[in-house]
């Protein structure tokens, strides 16, 4: 009989909170969007599934051994923990949790040991998160793979499009300002580090957003990653109205000069030029851009194709699986369900809109300043969201002139936006994280 009670009390149905039920539904919704609507499925399928796993009541997959021990609230264990922390009241789990997070490294180690001796272990997703994201390795490996998939040819043929990639990063910093502003008027409660991590959603680049969030605001990582990938999937809906509003029909019909051919040597040397520039100017961006350049060099140099193939396939796929599940671990109800999450979702879409507008407007400005004409529609591709944003530029352009193919021209600002976001990430880590 005791066993039946034990089984029932350990069952999910007996322990499920409203928040967990809600988050399971959110997870199912993400899976629906990914599978049925094609929202960035490679990331949102693992993230959504991980989110469901993280909210299985009683399983504690997203918690550390100590957190699991606290949740289990076994009196003897709690007493031992309270003693180790030097806290009096051992019956109040919340007080213990506060005391634990306030305590030093010594106490952390001790409580971990206590929890493990009492039979509690780290949850599966907690381990995945630590190995894949807290260490920083998964976003970097994915960035290496993305580098190995990127063709800088269009950018090299027309380097001026780098300015469009720079302009679109204004969305990031405007959003940082917005987040700080909302906090200063008391609507939200974001630190400057939180604000920086939220702003990076405007970079429209998943691995960069996850990397920055893991360093500056790990608690917000779940919401930031979900926002970043969701809005990237929504780019075909978000961008066109803004692009049409800010351009005239004549501007949208501008035909651009055909791109010159780019030699293989230029393509080999470019990642090294970029790397040296990073080394000289912004070491804080070295991990992200270094791995990106490394991947690109492996692809372009032509002598290590088996490494490049692996970076683009087995390695990036394996990493994506664990990265997605790890992000899902941050969708755990008691951390995700928060007014701040709504703020993040709202600020994220603002960031995308401002970035799009900035790119288009700077393209128009560049046309005023002279040089070969630039169709301002390619400016919106500067937010990255590779290659969706470049496709959108092409599609909106075709509406005005069915013979004006902008895809290739838009790839320049598109990959420039990846570099721009990584630079912005470096600046923010350097100024805020140090």
């Amino acid at each position: 009989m005791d066993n039946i009670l034990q089984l029932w009390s350990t069952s999910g149905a007996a322990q499920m909170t409203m928040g967990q039920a809600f988050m399971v539904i959110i997870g199912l919704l993400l899976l629906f969007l990914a599978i049925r609507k094609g929202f960035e499925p490679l990331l949102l399928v693992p993230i959504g599934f991980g989110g469901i796993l993280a909210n299985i009541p009683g399983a504690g997959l997203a918690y550390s051994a100590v957190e699991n021990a606290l949740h289990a609230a076994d009196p003897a264990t709690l007493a031992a923990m309270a003693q180790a922390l030097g806290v009096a009241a051992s019956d109040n789990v919340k007080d213990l949790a506060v005391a634990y997070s306030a305590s030093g490294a010594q106490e952390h180690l001790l409580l971990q040991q206590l929890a493990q001796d009492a039979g509690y272990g780290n949850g599966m997703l907690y381990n995945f998160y630590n190995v894949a994201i807290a260490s920083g390795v998964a976003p970097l490996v994915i960035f290496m793979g993305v580098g190995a998939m990127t063709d800088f040819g269009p950018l090299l043929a027309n380097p001026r499009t780098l300015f469009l990639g720079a302009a679109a990063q204004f969305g990031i910093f405007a959003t940082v300002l917005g987040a700080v502003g909302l906090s200063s008027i008391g609507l939200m409660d974001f630190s400057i580090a939180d604000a920086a991590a939220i702003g990076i959603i405007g970079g429209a680049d998943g691995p960069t957003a996850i990397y920055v969030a893991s360093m500056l605001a790990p608690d917000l990582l779940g919401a930031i990653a979900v926002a970043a990938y969701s809005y990237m999937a929504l780019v075909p809906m978000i961008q066109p109205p803004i692009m049409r509003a800010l351009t005239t029909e004549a501007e949208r019909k501008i035909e651009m000069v055909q791109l010159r051919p780019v030699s293989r040597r230029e393509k080999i040397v470019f990642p090294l030029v970029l790397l040296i520039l990073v080394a000289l100017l912004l070491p804080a961006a070295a991990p992200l851009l270094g791995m990106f350049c490394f991947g690109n060099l492996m692809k372009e140099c032509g002598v290590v194709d088996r490494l490049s193939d692996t970076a683009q396939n087995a390695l990036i796929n394996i990493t994506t699986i664990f990265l997605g599940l790890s992000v899902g671990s941050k969708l755990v109800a008691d951390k995700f369900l928060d007014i701040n999450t709504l703020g993040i979702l709202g600020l994220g879409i603002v960031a995308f809109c401002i970035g799009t507008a900035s790119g288009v407007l700077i393209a128009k400005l560049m046309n005023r300043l002279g040089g070969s004409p630039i169709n301002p529609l390619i400016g919106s591709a500067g937010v990255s969201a590779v290659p969706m944003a470049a496709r959108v530029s092409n599609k909106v352009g075709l509406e005005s002139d069915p013979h004006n193919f902008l895809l290739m021209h838009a790839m320049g600002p598109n990959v420039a936006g990846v570099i721009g976001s990584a630079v912005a990430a470096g600046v923010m880590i350097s100024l805020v994280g140090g």
Partner: protein
Amino acid sequence: MSQGIELMLYGMGTVVLFLALLVVATTAMSRFIGRYFPEPEPPVQAALQRLHAQNKPAGDPNLVAVITAAVHQHRSNK
């Protein structure tokens, strides 16, 4: 010994109960889908869609596809 008997009873009970519930849930699910969401797509289209999905790279879906297309256009422009 009694521990073993208990474990057997509760364990086997849970297994049977769980799989019985799964039978119910699966049957209900199949009927629900069959009635309200019958497969709309003919198999050929589905296969094509799957084939399409297979070509999408990780991290940035469609990246390779678009870049390939772009490179083709780029080359044919030369």
